[in-house]
């Protein structure tokens, strides 16, 4: 027999209590993503409404907090995509901080390494943990740099932008080394 909740009439005190325990986590996250309390309030409401709707799918084989994280993450990414699709003004700053060499752009790393696994291994080898996280969130999930700074609680003056610039420089250098080794073996 499944350990799903059986539905029926009754009060929502249990649900209210359950959600109350997790307000701080969800709200703090929503605030860091939205950057504004009104927007964060709407976002947090959306998280709890979705959690309520999907309560029947929660099977109890994972931590409630992890389950709520999964919903919060999904709602926050959808919010970010709907708010500013692919237009991060800080990307201009990043571009200005790097040499304008199309052959050194990070996507060349992925183009030249035909296997995604090989490109990922390169990324894993060359970048620091924080650089990897900034790179993955910004390019993999379209999270704006300002939001990444807030989510990862980066306290350096230019936040995630500095890590992105650093990561791209490292990948460009790795690309140059790779090209040099190709020439040697040719």
């Amino acid at each position, binding site marked *: 027999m499944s350990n*799903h909740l059986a539905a*029926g009439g*009754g009060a*929502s005190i249990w649900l209210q*209590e359950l959600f109350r325990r997790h*307000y701080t986590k969800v709200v703090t996250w929503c605030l860091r993503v939205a950057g504004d309390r009104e927007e964060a309030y709407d976002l*947090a409401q959306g998280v709890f409404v979705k959690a309520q709707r999907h309560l029947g799918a929660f*099977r109890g084989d994972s931590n409630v907090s992890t389950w709520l994280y999964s919903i919060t993450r999904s709602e926050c990414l959808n919010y970010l995509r709907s708010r500013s699709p692919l237009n991060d003004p800080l990307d201009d700053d990043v571009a200005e901080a790097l040499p304008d060499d199309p052959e050194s752009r990070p996507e060349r790393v992925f183009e030249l390494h035909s296997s995604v696994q090989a490109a990922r291994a390169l990324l894993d080898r060359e970048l620091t943990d924080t650089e990897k996280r900034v790179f993955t969130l910004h390019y*993999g999930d379209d999270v704006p740099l300002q939001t990444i700074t807030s989510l990862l609680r980066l306290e350096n003056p230019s936040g995630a932008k500095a890590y992105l610039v650093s990561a791209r420089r490292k990948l460009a250098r790795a690309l140059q080394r790779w090209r040099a080794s190709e020439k040697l073996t040719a």
Partner: protein
Amino acid sequence: MAEARSRERSLLRKALSPSYACASPLELGGLADGSLAQPAAARLRDHVSGCARCQTELTLLKDFESAAPRPDEERAVRWISARLERRFSEASAGPSPWRARHGPALPRRSVFTALNVGGFAVAAATLAAAVTIGLREGRPPELAQPSPAAPTVLRSAGITTLSPAGDLDAAPNELRWEPQTGAASYSVQVMEVDHAELWSAETRDASIALPPALRARIVPGKPLLWEVVAKDAAGRAVAWSGKQRFRIRR
């Protein structure tokens, strides 16, 4: 310039998207709190150690688990939490000390009016779930007392799914399951592995055709989940299938 940036975005997103081997947030949670069983835990730990995406997810998950507002965030977090309480109080059928404390609900957009507060578990089912969750959370939640007016408790039951499941040669045309005694209708949902909903529908039959737009999103190698919930004539959920996983072979 804009075209080059768009191309860059597209390539990098492709390279940094989750692979089939990447863990879902729930699996990462199991790894983090030690509840994921061996040998899956060892296999996942090995993958995470070399995967920037999974490491990022794990970092965010751990940060979420311990999230506390910074001093400059505390005021806004308190403001939002108080308003969420008001919405809950407004949506709840029972008397609430929170309502008295915070006054009438705010005129802000009322997403919480969408809450179906009458659709939750009655006391007996609540007790079972609360004990399970309470053990995981470290302390038991406060429980509602059973109401003499509460309707008969309907215990949950499992639905046997027929297809799709596992590795397939082509995108499925439909979802099928065994009819459930007492079911008047079924809610079905197709999800990404992180449980993000792709499509949902209602039907009175024990099968439902998948629309072309959804089938087009079922690409080789990409795992998806689906589940079905049986409902009685009053719309109450009476049985669940649990999540079924499938994908098309590469």
